[in-house]
């Protein structure tokens, strides 16, 4: 077990979050740093995720490290029945850091228990995806100039969306006001509302994606409503267009409002929003690169302020 591993956003403190944001900012200003020279990083993607893998691999490459790995478990021994433990132990012999995505929940936590190499969780089923949360926090901090006292509206699939759950939990340190906008079938689960209550976080639930809610928001965090989440297809047909955002809906929004989305989006954000200065989802994805550079250096115990050349 390596204590520099990052499995869940809950594992890191408020100060560590703020420190990672500072380091992400540093990498945004100085993205190309050869501080991983001689290091080998494994990207083990037992479940395909092109976006996340490319972002992590770009981060390693920009830091001068080398990458080995696979992007699909069907080409590995796990398809022959090898246990996760054996795969991790084998790869640990070769590399300085493991970045892994797995379709099973808890896989990354278990991986940390069978190796001394640091592990970064790049998503384990519906459970955790801490680098996504870090890039969301970095994007919020960068666009708002702060993380404290913001009004954050989460829209769409609040039941299964792991990004909104992790973001909600990470924001507990920063006195947010939440608006949860979702249909009954996809509303925020009770355990997260209990979490808000236990941490004294204000939240309001809405089934209507109203102008009032948009106009009150600093951040509009959109998510995709997926057809396969519905037990009743009629219900999906009824709600599928209720939580879509169009440029006209942003006309009276606060000037500092930014629209975030973990991507991929389908039609929950209309194409006409892309040209609005409030659209931020593509920059958000780029911020993922800097956030991941910061996370990788932290996992390897590298003091970037000492090692980097600026």
């Amino acid at each position, binding site marked *: 077990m390596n204590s520099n591993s990052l499995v869940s956003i809950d594992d890191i403190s408020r100060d560590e979050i703020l420190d990672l944001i500072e380091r992400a900012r540093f990498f945004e200003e100085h993205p190309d740093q050869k501080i991983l020279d001689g290091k080998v990083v494994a990207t083990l993607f037992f479940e395909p995720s092109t976006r996340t893998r490319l972002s992590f691999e770009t981060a390693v490459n920009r830091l001068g490290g080398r990458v080995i790995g696979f992007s699909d478990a069907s080409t590995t021994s796990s398809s022959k029945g090898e246990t996760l*433990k054996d795969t991790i132990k084998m790869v640990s012999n070769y590399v300085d850091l493991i970045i892994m995505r797995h379709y*099973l*929940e808890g896989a990354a936590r*278990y991986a940390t228990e069978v190796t001394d190499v640091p592990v970064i969780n790049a998503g384990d*089923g519906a459970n955790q995806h801490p680098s996504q949360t870090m890039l969301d926090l970095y994007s919020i901090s960068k666009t708002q100039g702060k993380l404290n006292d913001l009004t954050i509206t989460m829209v769409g699939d609040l039941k299964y969306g792991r990004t909104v759950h992790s973001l909600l939990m990470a924001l507990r340190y920063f006195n947010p006001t939440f608006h949860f906008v979702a249909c009954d079938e996809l509303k925020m689960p009770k*355990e997260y509302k209990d979490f808000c209550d236990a941490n004294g976080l204000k939240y309001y639930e809405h089934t209507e994606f109203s102008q009032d809610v948009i106009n009150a928001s600093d951040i509009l965090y959109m998510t995709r409503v997926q057809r396969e989440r519905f037990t009743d297809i009629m219900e999906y047909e009824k709600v599928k267009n209720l939580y879509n955002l169009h440029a006209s809906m942003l006309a009276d929004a606060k000037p500092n409002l930014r629209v975030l989305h973990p991507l991929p989006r389908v039609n929950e954000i209309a194409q006409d929003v892309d040209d609005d200065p409030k659209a931020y989802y593509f920059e958000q994805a780029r911020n993922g690169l800097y956030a991941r550079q910061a996370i990788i250096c932290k996992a390897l115990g590298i003091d970037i302020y000492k090692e980097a050349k600026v």
Partner: protein
Amino acid sequence: MTTDKKELAVAALRRGTVIDHIPNDMLFKAVKILGIERMPNSVTIGNNLSSRRLGLKGIIKVADVEFPEDVINRIALIAPHAKINTIRDFEVVDKRQVKLPDEIVGIVRCGNPKCITNNEPMRTRFHVVDRDDVTIRCHYCGQTVKSGDAIID
């Protein structure tokens, strides 16, 4: 010696352990958790006995065994008010309540089919997150379950 016919006709233990105050619907889970099914010792099991405290209760008597504390505490998961009586020479020499540990390793299976613990040859691990209604959370996937609903392996 006169025997009151309303009393249970169960021989007193010379030596062993009596586990009392098990909720009646948890008795067989307790038997399973303690591995009593596989013991060669004399075992007496009673269930649906009247109890002032629980309404109906279960009781287990196992001859010639004193369970280690960490073993016996495993049943706190499903019988938080169970009482353990240690018997030597027909006398109760020790009477104590089970204590719920902070962490439960093995015993419980995670109810989430997509949890790594249901897909790898490994032991489960749960943290007790609420002692009042005995809710436990999977160390790996984070799913919580009330212990009464937990799947015992």
